[in-house]
């Protein structure tokens, strides 16, 4: 992935008050441990994305003394009353992956999950999204094409560009209205062989 594209992505994310980190796969656990200290995280919600598991987020968090909640079918009843949603709402950090991210705007496409995990990227104060470098595309149109390449385009999805914001009061910018107050994107460099 060209350095120029990643630089563009970094600028686009900075413009929407989101941060970009580039972390080698083998360093991720250590990096995450430092972050949860920095961010005072006591509870984290994890999505069931493959990459999140591959990076060993669960173990790293537990080792750092963070309580981890992961969505599963077992939480009932359904909907807002679900205890899973309540747990995610209490977490300071939510970690997901994404289908891809657009360099032009900093937009990530969070695809639908069989187990509804939208709460992970929506309710906690911080949202951390991990992606491989190869998942960076040019623009939003390219994101939709990528989705189409994976199969039939169905399910509830969301495109996210930075932290939740409003300027409804005197046009002064405030972050963290209903969604996360902070969004961080980690691009995982290919593992050294």
């Amino acid at each position, binding site marked *: 992935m060209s350095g120029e594209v990643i630089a563009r992505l970094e600028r686009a994310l900075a413009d929407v008050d989101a941060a970009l980190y580039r972390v080698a796969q083998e360093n991720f656990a250590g990096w995450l441990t430092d972050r949860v200290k920095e961010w005072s995280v006591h509870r984290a919600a994890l999505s069931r994305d493959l990459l999140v598991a591959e990076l060993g987020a669960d173990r790293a968090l537990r080792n750092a003394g963070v309580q981890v909640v992961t969505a599963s079918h077992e939480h009932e009843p359904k909907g807002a009353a679900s205890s899973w949603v309540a747990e995610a709402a209490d977490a300071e950090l939510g970690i997901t992956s994404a289908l891809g991210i657009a360099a032009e705007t900093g937009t990530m496409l969070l695809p639908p999950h069989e187990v509804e995990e939208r709460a992970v990227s929506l309710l906690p104060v911080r949202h951390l999204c991990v992606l491989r470098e190869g998942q960076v595309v040019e623009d939003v149109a390219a*994101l939709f094409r990528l989705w189409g390449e994976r199969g039939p385009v169905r399910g509830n999805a969301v495109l996210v560009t930075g932290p939740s914001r409003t300027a409804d009061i005197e046009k002064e910018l405030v972050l963290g*209205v209903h969604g996360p107050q902070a969004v961080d994107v980690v691009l995982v460099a290919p593992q050294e062989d």
Partner: protein
Amino acid sequence: MSRAYPTKTLKRAIRRSLAARGEGPLPWKVNTLKALAGRDRHAAEWPDFERRRAHATERRQEALENLDALHARLRERWAENGVTVHEAADAAAAREIILGIARRAGVSSVVKGKSMLGEEIAINAALEEAGIEPVETDLGEYIVQLRGEPPSHITMPGMHLDRRDVGRLFADELGVEYTENPSELTQIARRTLRERFLAAGMGMVGVNFAVAETGHLATVTNEGNGRMVSSLPRVVVALMGWERVTETLDDLALLWQLLARSATGQRATVYLNLTHGPAPGPAGPDEVHVVVVDNGRRRVREDGELSEVLRCIRCGACLNACPVYQQVGGHPYGGTYPGPIGKVVGPALLGLEETPDHPFASTLCGACEEICPVSIPLPKMLLALRRRQVEGRGVFDLERTGWVAFRHTASDRRRWEVTTLLGRGIAGLWPAGVPGWSVRRATPSPAKQPFRARFRDEEAE
């Protein structure tokens, strides 16, 4: 449409707004200029902005011309996706349908994402009457709801208020300690509304676009309330204007970014929610309903002079660019849609009897058409509406008589020269000598000799 502020008295409302001005800067002037600066900055990032705009215009127009076919495809997708479809011919039907869904779901409150259409069909009042509490969740909408007044702008509903207004409001209505810090005020709203999100049995969102190729219902927000409202409650109702269909996700990508750049000067809104249907799993709706509302749109589509107004993507850029809106803000317009788009949509959906001043409250400067991402020719439509407005006037109407006299005078050179010589002005409708003109303006004096008398050359054969 919402009747909180009557539409009939636009002229009077404008005068009142001007008279009520204080000394300080006008919020609508300040905020529209900020939005315009943002729009210019981000439009400039696309060197081929005009080409993309032309493409978006074309795609919107094609969609309008193929609306029935697109709706047929949508219905197929929705059936596959498990979305329940309801057709509402008008506002009353839409309210009935939504109340029906709410009653069957047995809910006591509905959390709402921002929806102009919701305003148009006056759904909040209907819900309240039925003993169901509507809770606005967009911060600006929440604020004006607490104040009991309508929004004053399509994308910045509370832009007529300042931080002290909001601070006092929250202190009075929510019982919190007074603060005027926007960040603190936002946190108060976040806490208060999150409780409502998690407790609500039903959520209602406005649909920015329905995508025919997949059936997705796209909702756009910056705050995240759209996601909250469409993914947390058990029952979700998507409210959609009949014309808000686009064919492909590729269209959506372009329209979404044009909307963001034109409305608030962002490259993209923070959230673009794509609701597909009911979702399995612990969170996510059991039921997804879409209510497709006509309320006059089909009729507008058949109106040769006005149909292009249905291309509108509700960005509000025309409001920001309008010299009239910049002076008086949104409330004087009454109804749901203020600004230039409102001056056409109001008469189109409500009729000119309800909106007699709308077509005339414009200098026809064209700034709206210039900034519109889908190139709606609003000034041309206003001119057509003016014609329709005066068509009803009878033979004894003073204004009509004046113009008939004008035509008569201007049809003959001698009559013209005698009248202008005598009248020192034209037909009594000329600024010189008309009361409205001399508001802070010196009146021009007619020249001693008109041009025609000074210029010595050949005359017409």
